[in-house]
């Protein structure tokens, strides 16, 4: 680290780091653009813009210099969905800092998923919970928005609360999910679970290796 490397220009940032000889012990998760663990900040030659992408998705560019953030420190407040209503007021009560939004839109520019982050926060201010939920469906909670925010909002947690409230109170329950929950409650899987609980580590490893893999 702290050095320049020559790498083939077809590699992603993640592949390039491994190509030059490093092994990831953090900042690497699903490798498929879903988990948000490999958030990478970078600048390219002759451009003042600070950019953000997922290392597993973004191809290297000439002169790119990078830093990876494996974790964004954030306090997650506790909430009890059963005692809440599906209003934006509830979201503001749990996260009063969203009223500090300055509309600078730096959060949106930081989002590797191209979510309109500021627009979502403003939708919550305007009282439009549904808009906020629909706008943030693709959020992977990487936290890039939150580390850039001058109002110190932890957007991804705000969005999660918005989606939880909307999902619990506003959407139609999925029929197949209700059926599965009923099956679990009736003990359909109890035998299998207790069989697993009784196994030792070696047996579990063996079972894992032989598992059915989706093609």
């Amino acid at each position, binding site marked *: 680290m702290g050095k320049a490397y020559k790498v083939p220009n077809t590699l992603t940032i993640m592949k390039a780091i491994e190509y030059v000889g490093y092994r990831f012990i953090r900042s690497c998760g699903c490798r498929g653009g879903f988990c948000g663990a490999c958030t990478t900040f970078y600048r390219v030659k002759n451009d003042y813009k600070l950019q953000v992408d997922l290392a597993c998705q973004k191809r290297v560019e000439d002169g790119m210099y990078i830093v990876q953030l494996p974790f964004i420190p954030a306090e997650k407040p506790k909430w009890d969905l059963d005692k809440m209503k599906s209003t*934006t007021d509830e979201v503001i009560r749990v996260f009063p800092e969203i*009223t500090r939004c*300055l*509309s600078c839109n730096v959060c949106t520019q930081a989002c590797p998923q191209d979510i309109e982050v*500021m*627009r979502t926060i*403003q939708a919550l201010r305007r*009282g439009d919970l549904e808009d906020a939920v629909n706008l943030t469906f693709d959020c992977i909670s990487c936290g890039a928005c939150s580390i850039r925010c*001058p109002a110190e909002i932890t957007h991804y947690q705000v969005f999660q609360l918005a989606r939880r409230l909307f999902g619990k109170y506003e959407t139609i329950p999925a029929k197949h999910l209700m059926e599965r929950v009923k099956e679990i409650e009736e003990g359909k899987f109890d035998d299998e679970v207790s069989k697993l609980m009784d196994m030792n580590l070696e047996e579990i490893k063996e079972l894992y290796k032989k598992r059915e893999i989706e093609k």
Partner: protein
Amino acid sequence: MDMCILLRLFRQMPEGLGCGGNHGGSTGDKDPRERFHKGRPEKGGYREVTADCHNRGCPEVHVVIIMEVLYYPGCSLRNTYPEFEKSTYEACEKLGIELVEIPEWSCCGVVPSLATDNVMRHLGAVRSFINAQKKGREIGTNVIVVLCSMCYNVLKRVNLILKEEPDTLENVNSFIDDQPDYVPDLRVTHFLTFLKETGFENLEEKVNKPLKGLKVAPYYGCALLRPDRPEGVPIDNPDNPVILESFVRSIGAEPVHFPFRAECCGNYHIVLEPGIVEMRTRKIIGSAKSVKADLILSPCPLCTYNLGRGNESLDKSEQVPVVFFTQLLALALGGKSYLPTEIEDQILKKIGGEKSD
């Protein structure tokens, strides 16, 4: 078809009110376009719709002018006081005014930047202006109507600063690099000012349920009157405002003068020092009570909240109900006021009228 142009401020000819049989010529009403834009360089948006005449036997289809203005609601109206906004929509419907909500408006910022170099605080307002500018060009207006006093104060100040300080404007525009530049040619207007400019006397004509005998104490608060910097923020003379009184007269009620009408309610002290707010609002309410006011008229969500807290700390006999000015307006125009039933009943009893739907 020979259409008679009826320059009334109605969306539809209300039942029982006809064109007066004065077809093909002037109806005696002035063109609202002339009235609103007298001596002003700004353009206004208008739309023409046709409406049947309710005047008995009149076969004509009339062209009615609907005035379109940009509208900034603000967060308090959406989260805390929907009745303020709903009653305004109701009144505007009756007045032939169409409020075109600014798409994707941002929170105004609540407190404007007091430091000359803290431009960041202006961004929320400017983003709303940029969206308003786009919409305004579509419908052909540059007038933004604001209801909430606090939002008005912030938006008005930021807009004036951007008009007066080219450096600040450039700074803001170069920072907001994901939107077109803001060209500061919008005019931020409070709804009261807008009503005044379209003519209180004109409003008077449209009132079909005058609130006769109702004693109303018009409370101004701070944000509509102070500060006068940049110049042009107050909607009236800060030392002796009359706009709310004129408004009250135009809806047929009687404005009562009380010395605390422009005193501060305590504002954000409600968060950390509610005692200060209660002390101040008790004085304001007591002052209105001493001149036998039936109601306090408020133009501001925060003042309304604070006055409500003051009322809660008083005995029932010392309380004075607080209503938004647009609620009385909607009521006087024969629309839905979104007032609590108890208060609406009191008003109707006082003016001796029937309950509205």
